[in-house]
């Protein structure tokens, strides 16, 4: 906590100093403020806590306090907006600007995320005939799990020189996550036993970005450096792993133990590795006549410090926007990225070492599924057909060539898209747009060998020296690639807006999407969704807005739920 308060204090001082310097130099032209003091009460009777619930109250009256302050001079502006609901829910924004030479922003967010406790009641069961079983154990049944996230962000923009508009840009963010979470560890054999325990959360993330930019004629060049460090300072959570024996009869310890990497031991679980990431980015943007262009090159390296494992990303992008005619524009975009993760060798004990038959070696080199070349390009043409009608058409391609892709026939994924949009606009009062998008992919991302497709026992032979067929042999029968990613998608988006005057705004929308993949051998997938919506906003005056709206979402999926084709 010391660190966050130190950072908080430093940021506050800098912003406050900026404000004071500016305010002291000149007369305030306007100074406004508003204060709200109130209270809120939330009844949690019959309320079930669940994951993802942002707690905004409790079973007691809580004070609420908010403040808005604004100070303006001829050359400065300072604003403060803050809201306090309880000690865990605080929002504060401060912004300060002096002329065109310096600006600073500061944000503080504190929020509380409630997490439910999984009582694992479904995990006490046994196979027919008194066979394999599943048991569970809750070590901390009364725990109230939560995450308290605190975030401080500050950014600064300082003009170093009027000549060439040389600017220093810097930003900083610290995120603290504290709390307790449920952690479940599973132990094989003995019984399939799950143990739920309470783990402490104490994560901290620091991010900084610093850069320079300068104008060179009509062009702007810039450089940015980024650095991020993530650390978990919580004590490592541990779990007990049983001595492996037959789950029903309690015998054959040597046989079952020879199939385990570890047994009868207490080990860390759910460990977050400390990581760091640094990046460099060069940007170039400019205008020439009716054209705008820009490009960037970036390099980043993320490192898992616990295992000295790194990933790198080298990417470049460019855009060009120009007028083809008086009322026709073209926008072209292109990007390329090369992503690599170091491979790592996983050394495992021999499977069934010392048991009858030949032991099997499951050592392997982990080549990352991230390694790839990612290319994207698109062109958009926008044309005003007449005073009220604008039409646009865009098309593009994306190619993802994965280096280590375990799927059969591992061609690159190629996706084409096309989009047409027509917009009708009548003055400032009424507008309607209709957009249709079509996407077509070949070889979309698949879960390689995720699916069984044949009965196993009849085609499997027992391992030499034994009379048994083992699970790993059955795993090898997974040869069917499977995916939820469609090969075709159709998207329709209609929006309409009506503003009879400056105070009333009525919006109507309709979105629909249909996609499918019928290239699968046996399991076609398709998804359909639609969502009509309606919203009315009435701005009675700058301080009062009445909003009302409704939306209906319908989603339907047709896809595989894979089932086992043989028992264990």
């Amino acid at each position: 906590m010391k660190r966050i308060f130190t950072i908080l204090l430093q940021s506050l001082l800098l912003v406050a100093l900026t404000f004071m310097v500016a305010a002291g130099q000149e007369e305030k032209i306007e100074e406004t403020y508003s204060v709200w003091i109130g209270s809120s009460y939330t009844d949690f009777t019959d309320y079930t806590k669940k994951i993802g619930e942002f707690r905004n109250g409790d079973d007691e009256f809580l004070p609420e306090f908010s403040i808005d302050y604004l100070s303006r001079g001829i050359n400065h502006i300072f604003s403060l907006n803050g809201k306090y609901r309880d000690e865990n829910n605080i929002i504060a924004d401060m912004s300060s600007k002096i002329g065109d030479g310096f600006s600073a922003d500061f944000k503080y967010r504190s929020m509380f995320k409630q997490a439910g406790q999984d009582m694992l009641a479904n995990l006490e069961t046994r196979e027919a005939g008194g066979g394999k079983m599943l048991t569970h154990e809750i070590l901390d049944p009364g725990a109230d799990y939560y995450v308290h996230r605190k975030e401080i962000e500050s950014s600064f923009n300082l003009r170093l020189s009027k000549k060439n508009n040389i600017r220093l840009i810097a930003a900083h963010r610290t995120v603290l996550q504290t709390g307790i979470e449920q952690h479940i560890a599973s132990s094989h054999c003995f019984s399939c036993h799950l143990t739920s325990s309470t783990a402490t959360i104490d994560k901290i993330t620091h991010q900084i970005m610093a850069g320079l930019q300068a104008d060179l004629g009509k062009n702007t060049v810039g450089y940015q450096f980024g650095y991020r460090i993530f650390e978990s300072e919580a004590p490592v959570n541990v779990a007990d792993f049983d001595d492996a024996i037959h789950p029903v009869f309690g015998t054959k310890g040597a046989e079952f133990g020879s199939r385990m990497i570890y047994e009868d031991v207490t080990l860390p679980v759910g460990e977050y590795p400390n990581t760091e990431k640094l990046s460099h980015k060069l940007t170039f943007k400019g205008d020439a006549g009716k054209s705008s262009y820009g490009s960037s090159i970036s390099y980043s390296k993320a490192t898992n410090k616990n295992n000295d494992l790194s990933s790198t990303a080298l990417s470049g992008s460019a855009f060009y926007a120009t007028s083809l005619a008086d009322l026709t524009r073209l926008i072209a975009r292109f990007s390329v990225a090369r992503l690599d993760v170091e491979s790592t060798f996983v050394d495992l004990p021999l499977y069934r070492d010392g048991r009858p038959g030949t032991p099997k070696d499951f050592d392997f080199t982990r080549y990352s599924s991230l390694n790839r070349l990612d290319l994207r390009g698109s062109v958009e043409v926008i044309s005003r057909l007449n005073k009220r009608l604008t039409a646009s058409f865009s098309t593009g391609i994306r190619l993802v060539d994965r280096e280590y892709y375990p799927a059969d026939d591992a061609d690159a994924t190629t996706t084409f898209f096309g989009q047409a949009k027509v917009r009708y606009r009548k003055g400032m009062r009424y507008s309607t747009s209709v957009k249709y998008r079509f996407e077509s992919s070949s070889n979309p991302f698949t879960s390689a060998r995720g699916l069984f497709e044949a009965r196993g026992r009849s085609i499997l032979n027992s391992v030499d020296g034994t009379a048994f067929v083992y699970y790993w042999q059955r795993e090898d029968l997974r040869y069917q690639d499977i995916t939820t990613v469609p090969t075709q998608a159709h998207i329709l988006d209609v929006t309409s807006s009506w503003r009879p005057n400056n105070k009333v705004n009525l919006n109507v929308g309709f979105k629909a999407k249909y996609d499918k993949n019928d290239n699968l051998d046996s399991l076609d997938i398709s998804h359909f969704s639609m969502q009509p919506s309606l919203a009315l906003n009435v701005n009675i005056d700058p301080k009062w807005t009445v909003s009302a709206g409704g939306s209906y979402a319908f989603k339907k999926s047709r896809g595989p739920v894979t089932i086992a084709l043989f028992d264990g």
Partner: protein
Amino acid sequence: MKKQARPHSFLFGVFGVTLSCVFVLFTSLVMAKTPPADAVPVGNSVCLDCHDDVGIDFAKTMHGTLLNKVSDNSCESCHGPGSAHVENEDPDMIINPARQNQFDGKSTCLSCHNTDNFSNWAMADHNAADMNCSSCHTIHSDDVAWTSGKINNLCTECHLDVKASAFMPSHHPLKEGNMSCLDCHDPHGGGATFAHESSIRELCFSCHPEKEGPFIFEHAPVNEDCMLCHSPHGTVADNLLTQTEPALCLNCHSMHFHAAIEGWDGAFTTPQAPERAGTTTADGWKEGMLTKCSQCHTEIHGTDLPSQTISTSGNALTR
């Protein structure tokens, strides 16, 4: 999976290029009108003769405060010289920034607001959608307090589906005001401050760095696209998952082969663990294994710690 060539993709590209050419040829000659070249400034007092209602509100704004201090032509700082408009009372004879769009060259606003924040406006989706600064910003009345909650309300005036999604049981805390749309999106066409590359993965990891790794044991979809499993604006399923478990997982993985068989109708009588005795039902095993895959596979985003069995190469993401 069958691997098929897709000839319609090529045809689609040809269709696109053809349609683009048609657009160019079909372009009409309707131009936005601007003040005649010989128009001259008339000063605020002349403007306020007719637009006094605008002037009262404008004087209270940031623009009004600044411009009125330094010039008597503050209206014409943005609207251009007004003499022709005054003489003819023709609204087309004066610049109206609120009517400017992507075809009118550089926006009047950008001539002053020329920092890096706005340098991508030429390629911004909002610009391409024929929006302009006035679509979101009010110039003639005071609207300075751009707090998170107000920004979110502004964005969702148009993005209604997003607003609805934020009311789903699992959602990012947009409606609570703890997040802003601007944390992930830049309406002016730029990128998020702390995302280094232009990818959805990178954007997600800028706030959730513990998920990035790199890890020894990976889950391929995490490397592919977060959106394969998550929908960021809001979902019915917990943790922003697009479907509930285990249906989501079973879209890509066969379930454990124990799972589809009948359960035991009776009590546990485990000789080695009597304290773990319980009861079950004939459907119990199916119920147990069809609930949530992440109850056992807790480290679904990746881990450095091997799972217990050798035959899965420690790759089961359970530890």
